[in-house]
């Protein structure tokens, strides 16, 4: 559908470096990355607001790199809605069709239809400023969808909304994508949006796409230290890898951790998700290859989840629910056993 080739753009503060990206028709691609990673500038370059310094944008086989935005049929929705304040909701939604000089009767019909799809048909005569954030974003999405765009770009569409509205509109986005099958590129900071919306997720850093794949794969198997720590990996260790009995052993500060994957005999990073580590008062006999004894050094309670740090020579973090913690009945300074499977250790 859309293919970018070595797209680069230097805007001083924000930068894009050699972005090559392939978006398949009907796909829902979510892009995450820290602030300043160049996510918005990527979307804006695809939409055609600035010419790239180098590289090409191909849409449906046609080179659109030098085509003005109005002829690309790519629509954009921003975090802060960007509804035209001097127009009613109806005029906002119909804006693009009017620009295309469609018949007023047709515009009216399509506008109402799209407003109904987004459950804002009762708001058509209101001015944007009188709407709630969620309603405004629905109107902005309707304004884009009514154009039947080849590609819909969403720039943190849910970030300005409060918790409940965000949840609702997220579900709505999924539903609309299922109905219209429009191709979407969606930028976010929020991991929940990745898991509930993305067919694929791309991680950006410093203007580059550093990993792309299905969400579970990317979160379970980060390809660099940056991705591991950005996606919230708590336990990241550096060590040297060697093969032992078909699986690999990673030596970290003198401790051996077993992993199901290995990249050959060299320096590697190993990560273990905190929730994959089991704590127990007594040693557990199980098929899990990794078992350690340590001392609890820190306990953090955020009201919902307990985060426990255990010193086993190296500091290891484990997360559990409050119920799990209450059953364990342990305190800071006590000895505890850690168990985790070799398959839970991801190496990169």
């Amino acid at each position: 559908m859309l293919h970018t080739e070595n797209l680069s753009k230097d805007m001083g503060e924000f930068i894009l470096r050699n972005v090559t990206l392939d978006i398949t028709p009907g796909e829902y691609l979510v892009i995450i990355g820290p602030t300043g990673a160049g996510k918005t500038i990527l979307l804006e370059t695809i939409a055609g607001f600035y010419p790239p310094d180098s590289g090409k944008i191909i849409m449906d086989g046609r080179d659109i790199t030098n085509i003005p935005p109005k002829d690309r049929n790519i629509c954009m929705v921003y975090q802060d809605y960007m509804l035209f304040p001097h127009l009613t909701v109806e005029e906002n939604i119909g804006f693009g069709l009017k620009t295309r000089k469609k018949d007023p009767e047709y515009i009216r019909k399509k506008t109402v239809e799209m407003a109904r799809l987004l459950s804002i048909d009762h708001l058509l005569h209101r001015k944007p400023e009188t709407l709630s954030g969620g309603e405004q974003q629905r109107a902005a999405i309707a304004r884009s969808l009514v154009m039947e765009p080849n590609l819909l770009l969403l720039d943190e569409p849910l970030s300005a909304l409060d918790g409940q509205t965000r949840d609702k509109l997220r579900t709505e986005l999924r539903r609309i994508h299922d109905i219209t099958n429009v191709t979407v590129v969606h930028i976010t900071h929020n991991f929940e949006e990745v898991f509930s919306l993305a067919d694929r997720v791309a991680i950006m850093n410093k203007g580059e796409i550093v990993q792309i794949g299905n969400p579970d794969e990317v979160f379970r198997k980060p390809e660099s230290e940056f991705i591991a720590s950005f996606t919230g990996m708590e336990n990241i260790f550096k060590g040297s890898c060697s093969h032992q009995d078909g699986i690999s052993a990673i030596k970290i500060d003198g401790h051996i951790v077993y992993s199901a994957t290995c990249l050959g005999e060299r320096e590697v990073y190993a990560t273990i998700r905190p929730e994959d580590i089991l704590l127990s008062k007594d040693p557990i006999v199980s098929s899990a290859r990794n078992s350690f004894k340590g001392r609890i050094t820190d306990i953090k309670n955020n009201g919902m989840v307990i985060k426990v740090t255990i010193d086993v020579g190296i500091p290891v973090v484990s997360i559990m629910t409050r119920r799990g913690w209450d059953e364990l009945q342990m305190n800071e300074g006590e000895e505890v056993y850690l168990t985790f499977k070799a398959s839970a250790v991801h190496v990169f």
Partner: protein
Amino acid sequence: RNSWLRNATIGMSFLLTFFIIVLLLLIVTKPSFETLYTSITSPEIQFAIFMSLGTSIISTILCILIAVPAAYALARYSFFGKGAVNAILDMPLALPPLVAGLGLLLFFGTTGFGNALADMGLVFVFTPLGIIAAQFFVNFPYMLRIMRSTFESISTRYEFVAKTLGCTDLQAVWRVTLPMAGSGFFAASVITWAKGIGEFGAALLIAGAIQWKTETLPIALFLNMSCGNLNMAISAATILIIICIVSL
């Protein structure tokens, strides 16, 4: 617990306000209502009102046509020399109006370009055209500044969105940015117009103070003061005060 800092500073602001009100009242209440009425309805003051309104409206329209596009460029684009352009365009704000008037006089009176215009019938020296040029030159920076900050306060993303909805660059500005800039545009026009009405120094130099020819309200005030005709002067001032209050 009433702080004396609070009382002293608020007192100072009231003192200044009081001073302004006294000054204005002194002018407005000086002549009797009847003398004022006679003066205002006199042909000379009528002429001055007409001349002031005419020149200030035309110069305001010129400011709009020229300063609004320039303000848009300064708000939206970055280009070579932008810093210098910005600084120089603010200069007429600090330049004494007399100096601006002298510059215009030299420009229209002594250069080939000015002579060429004069040959085409566009004479600026000692004519109402000169008043318009003076008002334009002294006041366009106000229009420019206000519109520049108005445009800057409107996110470029509105235009971006309009373009994805099928607008050309110009359509995006015309259908989205200009309507959104409405209130700033109105304020800028009123200020430019009010400043134009009150313009004296620059107009004096290029258009002279010629009774019945280049006599705007400030010029009428000046001419009548010079020949001791206080009532006429004060009625011109009263009209100027009324215009000033209405425009605020």
